[in-house]
């Protein structure tokens, strides 16, 4: 390690040794919050700059105050003053540092300011978008949805919040426009899903699923029984086993039914020799504790097809019951 780094490390230790004055920090945060509520933006920004460099208050306490301030700010309305204040602090470079617990030659802030400030902007983005969505629904301004951008996680989430909690009579007329918006931009599919959840509308859920991808799709398929009912979900899951993006979710979901539904159990058994899906089916069946499962798994162990025998073993491992484990112990 060079000398400069060693000195930095020592300085960091010294900084870490400075305790935060929590009371003072809270008091300063409160003062800044009050100031923000009454002063124009230029003055607020100037005061934040001044406070950041106010050496009469220990640096660590100052940054604790700024952190508390920016976290509290997110409960305030995202007006221009607040927004500019948070934006200013999202560019703040913390100076009260402590050695990183894993790499002592690296430092981390004692109190993060910039990241929560960015988070505050994200909170507001979501709130603003929710408000905009609610307003659009109330005003029947459905163009709002077709102009929605999918580039920011919280924009989509905020619009979805609006739809999820909207009065049904406002929501229903918006549905064709939502479909049009999602057709234009499939990444907006979560807003249609939110509307479908609000309306408990299986058909709309099905439409949403045509567009949904990734984590949203997986979760939706996995929890489909709660949205479209157990029977319709069961049919969907069974249909999804053949191909497509929902196989993993469908197998996991069907596994929950396998103990009480012999047909489902049988369907999962037919997947056992599938190179890609067999292990998933084995896990789902094993955990289901379906009747007769252990005996069938034991039969699979004797298969002259190595893959089937392997899946039998996985099924017994997943089952984990006494008989299953005894069978495994007897295996070479």
């Amino acid at each position, binding site marked *: *390690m060079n000398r400069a780094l060693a000195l930095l*490390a020592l300085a960091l*230790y010294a900084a*870490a040794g400075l305790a935060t004055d929590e009371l003072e920090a809270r008091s300063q945060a409160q003062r800044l*919050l*009050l100031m923000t*509520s*009454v*002063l*124009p933006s230029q003055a607020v920004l100037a005061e934040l700059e001044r406070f950041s460099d106010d050496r009469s208050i220990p640096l660590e306490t100052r940054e604790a105050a700024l952190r*508390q301030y920016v*976290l509290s700010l*997110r*409960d305030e309305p995202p*007006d221009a*003053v607040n927004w500019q204040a948070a934006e200013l602090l999202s560019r703040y*470079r*913390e100076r009260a540092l402590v*050695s*990183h*617990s*894993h*790499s*002592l*030659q690296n*430092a*981390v*802030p004692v109190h*993060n300011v*910039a*990241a*929560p400030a*960015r*988070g*505050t902007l*994200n*909170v507001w*983005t979501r709130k603003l978008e929710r408000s905009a969505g609610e307003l659009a629904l109330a005003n029947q301004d459905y163009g709002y949805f077709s102009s929605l951008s999918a580039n*920011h*996680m919280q924009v989509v989430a905020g619009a979805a919040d609006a739809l999820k909690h909207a009065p049904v009579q406002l929501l229903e007329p918006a549905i064709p426009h939502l479909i049009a918006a999602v057709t234009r931009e499939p990444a907006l599919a979560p807003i249609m899903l939110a509307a479908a959840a609000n309306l408990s509308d299986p058909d709309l859920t099905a439409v949403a699923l045509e567009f949904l991808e*990734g*984590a949203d799709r*997986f*979760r939706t398929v*996995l929890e489909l029984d709660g949205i479209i009912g157990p029977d319709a979900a069961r049919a969907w899951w069974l249909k999804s086993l053949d191909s497509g993006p929902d*196989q*993993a979710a469908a*197998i*996991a979901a069907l596994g929950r039914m396998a103990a009480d539904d012999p047909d489902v159990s049988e369907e999962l058994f037919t997947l056992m020799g599938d190179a890609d899906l067999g*292990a*998933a089916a*084995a*896990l*789902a069946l094993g*955990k289901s504790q379906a009747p007769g499962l252990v005996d069938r798994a034991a039969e699979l162990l004797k298969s002259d097809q190595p893959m089937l025998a*392997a899946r039998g*073993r*996985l099924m017994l*491992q*997943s089952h984990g019951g006494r008989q299953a484990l005894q069978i495994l112990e007897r295996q070479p």
Partner: protein
Amino acid sequence: MKRRTIVLGALLWCGAAASQSVIEWTEQPGILGLGFPVPEPVDTPLPFDGFRSYNGLLTRHQDFMLNHEFIAGEVVGNSEAGRDIWAYRYSDADSITVTGLPEPAIYTQGGIHAREWQSPEVLTGIMEHLVANAGDQWLHRYLLDNMNMVLLPVLNVDGYLQTQRYPRQVYLEGSAPRDGRMRRKNMLGVDEDINTSGDRLLGVDLNRNSPPFWATNSGASSSDPGSIVHHGSGPHSEPESLAMVAAARLGPEDRLRMYTDVHSFSQVHFSVNTNNTRRNVIQRNLLGDFSSFHAQLEGGKVYIDRPSDARQGQAIGSTDEFFAVTYAVPSWTLEIEPSGTLSPDAHPSLPGCGADYGGFASNCHDGFILPESEIRRVRENLGQTFPIAYYGQAGPPSVTAVRWIDDATGAVVADAEWDVQSATQRSLFFNQVQPLQLDRSYTLWLAFDKPMRWRNDNGQIAPLPGQATRTTEVTADLLLEDVTQSPEDSSGQWLANAGGAPDGYYRYRDDAYSASFNLAGSPLAAAITGETQVTLNLSAQDMVGQLLDGDPATPADWGIVGNWVGYEDTNGVETDLGGSDDTLTFAVTSAALDDPFVITPGVSAVWFDPTHDGEGFVIEVLDNQRAVVYWFTYDKAGNQRWMIGIGQVRGNEVVFPELLESSGGIFGDAFDPAQVQFSNAGNASFVWSDCGAFRMRHNVDVRNQRQAALRLTDSTGSGCEFDTDRFSLLPFTGSWYDLEHDGEGFVISAAGPDRVVVYWFTYDDAGNQAWIVGDGSFDNGQVNIEQAFIASGGVFGDAFDPDTVSLEPWGQLQFSLGCNSGSVNYQSVLPQYGSGSQNLTRLTNLAGLDCTTD
């Protein structure tokens, strides 16, 4: 001017937290508001946009292990609660490379800190990437064949299960979320119920539990059992730590070349520098290759190297220090994304923590909770990237073989190859059939010991993503003092198809390169009179920019002190940089010589190496540039063994991509063709220098071995063609078998104008391979072998000693042959063989012979 009434209650944010000991992560704003759905583990082994449960991951690992022969799993220890801790070896079954060197090893570990769910997913992503690409006959197959990749996906099994038991709940200690979803340590002294107080903070930080710096730094590890960095009661006091050590032994430990402990978050490499500067530089370059490649992938995520020193005062008792110091290998902690809030800032363009994805960053601990929408990309990108680092540490590149092929005849005129003799020594096999001639054109074929090039989506050679264009340059020049002869412009090409010289790769796609030389009128031609030795100067970099080993005679390896050994530069000096290879010289002549020898049908004969008297080869040249070899030899224990190959004739060479050996046959009436199985024992190539001699290379016992053979039988006249006038029996020669005995058979070869030698490739009564040989008379289709023999005592390969071979009388055989059918009767003096007969059908027709007397 009052804009509004402010809710000062918001400032109770922190105070409110303190009053609730167990609280939840939420999607909506709040003390632990994420801004995205709270991930919950799903019981599936399949990769998806989310996190798998421990059972799901374990099932995935076990399914791979049970269904792929290149994966072996082992329980390397048990957790505090007695749960199995699994490590997996991704490698072929042997522990040696395809050229015969001891395999290097890497160890990559995940799941040491329970809450860092990204880590086991990434380890599983590495496995998934290796499995999906195992058949690529390129980078990944190369790694599986030549490296032992030890992967341990979840070390802290108990802790991991605790976090998955409470995917939302945490115990809030001040403002720090602990236990439940935020458990970091193992479960020593902890029950599994988050609601029981008194034990929530307990456990040992497994990344503070390692020697040699265990408990040496009170700022970074603690003796307080409640501390987040509690170091435990002693170095490697925890069963999980002992499992880690046991996993390293799977390398085995003295073959390790790299260690990575996969954590989250901060999007950096926390690498460990030791007092070995050479090791540190290699590590820095390795991490540079890792990061450069990763940055080019879908997410464009950049990992920054932030090294620290493994020395008292700075070290913390972590596992990366343990591996860096104990095994002297590149060793680092990979902190997966999101970025953190390091100072100096490693990622100035990113806000850090969950805010990297648009999250709320309410508490930067949310960096431990990657959004479900991100994990697939993270898993797949890092799954792709780790093999690049493995490739680098597999070793610097080395030239393994060079061939000059005469373009007009396709004959190999010079053949050089570095054969492994031991872990520290290669010997040069060199066979120049004739000097290179100035009035001919040649193809130079070079083979390396690893895949050397990346191809883009269009199949064109391109730098490995993140590497400089210069890494694709190749120099292959002939040097004579100050005269340089380069290949024809634009003739150089990397070889993407199988087949070997001159048009195919050697073992892996793009491990071979060819270029054209036309020496006529060249500066070199003007400088040569008579026969002169000319140096071949070779320079190339592998995909990560490592230069060639300047002296292939000493294989590059990782030295015990922590740098490359046997890795020479251009001047033969051992460094970590490599250089160009000018170890090979070839004879060039200004004389105009005859064409080099090319294979003719008369090559069909019995051949043997005088130093291997007691084993040998029957070669049959067939039509359509095909040839068959029967190799009658022995196994390691001195029992009889035979192999068959079907090869391609190219100029003066026959290449046998597979040598097949059989099992399951039983001699005599008990023979059942359905029980005979053929398996691939290796490969071989034979290069003839003239009609009476060849040099053969085989790779049956992993490393190359060779024989130089001469004729045992000869039925040729002039020009190496069959002398059918003198050897009237020739049309009856070839391979014969009984249709009901498919899996054994006879080879009849001319040994004189009215003499034949017969080989019967069969089995004994116990199902072992056997071969019986005898020579006898031939008269108008009637062959009489009055005394056949059976041999024993030879030992396969270089250990063969002719003096240990003994021949035992076997009995008699009588053949009655037409052109296409015949019969054989036999009477053995050995009771286990007895007497019998077979009806024969011709299996092979030798090229150049025509039988019309049936």
